[in-house]
């Protein structure tokens, strides 16, 4: 999509308009990955139960997905539920799963309208069967979309993904000498997708938390103190602007700009 697409969506005179005009649309990150952190803290600040934070986080998801799609980002990957999150109380996990289901039901039309393709990365087979059903339905219904690819990491772990990829490579009968980085990447959950250019983490934590370990090798990391439920269009645009100011060197010296190179 484009500047016009995004501006058409922003009420004229809104402060975000100025921000949008600063974006270099020829140097957008192709793949943006987000660690959605801070729901619990957001709720605690308001003396609410943790699940209310997750509930509020849904609005941030909605806003970010639509902003990213209108901006013209090709792949958006959100970290919704890690394999380690099973350790949380059953009441919190149960609510998270039902929120996911409700989100899928209520947002499917928005996804289709914005030509967004929905995908899941992670060990989906360990989720409750009705949740799996719901996910498969959303994947299937949006499979014809040609716009942004929207990955949700569910029951995801970066190390587990690498182990799964190694297993798949072995099962496919790949000989050790045939295996290189490119081949190996084709066995990851994200096979065929570009690596994230920009990794955003909310809530100020400076951790990678087992997220896309293989794929973020050269990602620019942007950490904001904003808590996830407060994260909106403006924050995503700010992250993109910060990204566009960086010099990406991929291990070289890079005196000549490869800033935001695709």
């Amino acid at each position, binding site marked *: 999509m484009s500047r016009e697409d995004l501006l058409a969506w922003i009420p004229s005179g809104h402060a975000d308009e100025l921000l949008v005009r600063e974006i270099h649309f020829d140097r957008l990150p192709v793949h943006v990955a987000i660690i959605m952190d801070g729901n619990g803290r957001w709720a605690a600040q308001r003396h609410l139960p943790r699940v209310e934070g997750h509930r509020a986080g849904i609005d941030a998801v909605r806003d970010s997905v639509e902003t990213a799609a209108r901006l013209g980002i090709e792949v958006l990957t959100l970290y919704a539920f890690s394999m380690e999150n*099973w350790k949380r109380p*059953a*009441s919190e996990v*149960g609510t998270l*799963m039902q929120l996911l289901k409700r989100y899928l039901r209520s947002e499917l039309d928005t996804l289709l309208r914005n030509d967004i393709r929905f995908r899941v990365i992670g060990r989906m087979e360990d989720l*409750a*069967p*009705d*949740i799996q059903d719901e996910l498969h339905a959303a994947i299937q219904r949006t499979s014809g979309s040609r716009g942004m690819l929207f990955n949700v990491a569910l029951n995801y772990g970066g190390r587990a993904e690498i182990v799964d990829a190694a297993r798949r490579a072995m099962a496919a009968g790949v000989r050790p000498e045939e295996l290189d980085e490119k081949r190996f990447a084709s066995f990851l959950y994200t096979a065929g997708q570009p690596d994230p250019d920009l990794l955003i983490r909310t809530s100020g934590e400076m951790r990678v938390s087992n997220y896309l370990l293989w794929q973020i090798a050269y990602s620019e990391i942007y950490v904001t103190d904003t808590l996830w439920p407060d994260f909106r269009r403006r924050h995503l645009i700010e992250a993109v602007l910060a990204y566009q100011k960086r010099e990406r060197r991929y291990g070289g010296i890079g005196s000549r700009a490869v800033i935001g190179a695709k």
Partner: protein
Amino acid sequence: MVRLASGIALIAVTLAAILFLPIAALRVLACLVAALGAYEYLEIVESPIRAVVLAVALCWVSSRASMPPAQLLLMMALLWVALEVLAADHPVAQVTSGVFAAVYVGMPLGLLVAVHALQGWSATLLLLGTIVVSDSSQYYVGRMLGRRPLAPSISPKKTIEGAVGGLVFATAFMVLAGARMLPFVGYGSLFVLGLLVVGLGICGDLFESRLKRTAGVKDSSSLIPGHGGVLDRVDALLFAVPPFYLFIRNIS
């Protein structure tokens, strides 16, 4: 043969409804079953049939994901009893036992839909599966090993051995299937939940037997060929739903 055929049909219809019907339709379906069950109950206790309305009303409000406004219904029940006794001149005992149809049949069936609304068909099938496993293991273990009667004055065919078999197999089912259907719930909770659901299910079974014995009927009706009536099918479920619902509500 008739029993087997209608049993399979019943399971198929139930499964299809739980898997494919939207919540709104399930709510209507539950109310329909509640109406039939309440009708059978009211016949048995010889109470005015129109209390079916109360059972359906309680089923409807219980089926929502949010906590039902209990006071409103209790007020309705109070008014109902007053009108039946004062205006229609029915005996108090008869009228109050009719109001019980709402608590006995309406509420649990509504809560079953609420379980579906809260945690989806995975949780709903887990409960129904546990009850089915409990019923059949009670029957088969009882037939193979049954010696000592469980409650000779209520239901001569039930044995202690059968009940233990039901507790063992159905609780095992709850734990194993529960780990799959509700992957975030621990084994300990599932175990306790299994014992509660099966134990109360057996109570529900005996309760309905006592009900029929009091009235001197064998089946609650002959609606389902070879199976008796609606109440005969859901008797264990009616008592097992509340603890399961409370648990699901707690984790949602």
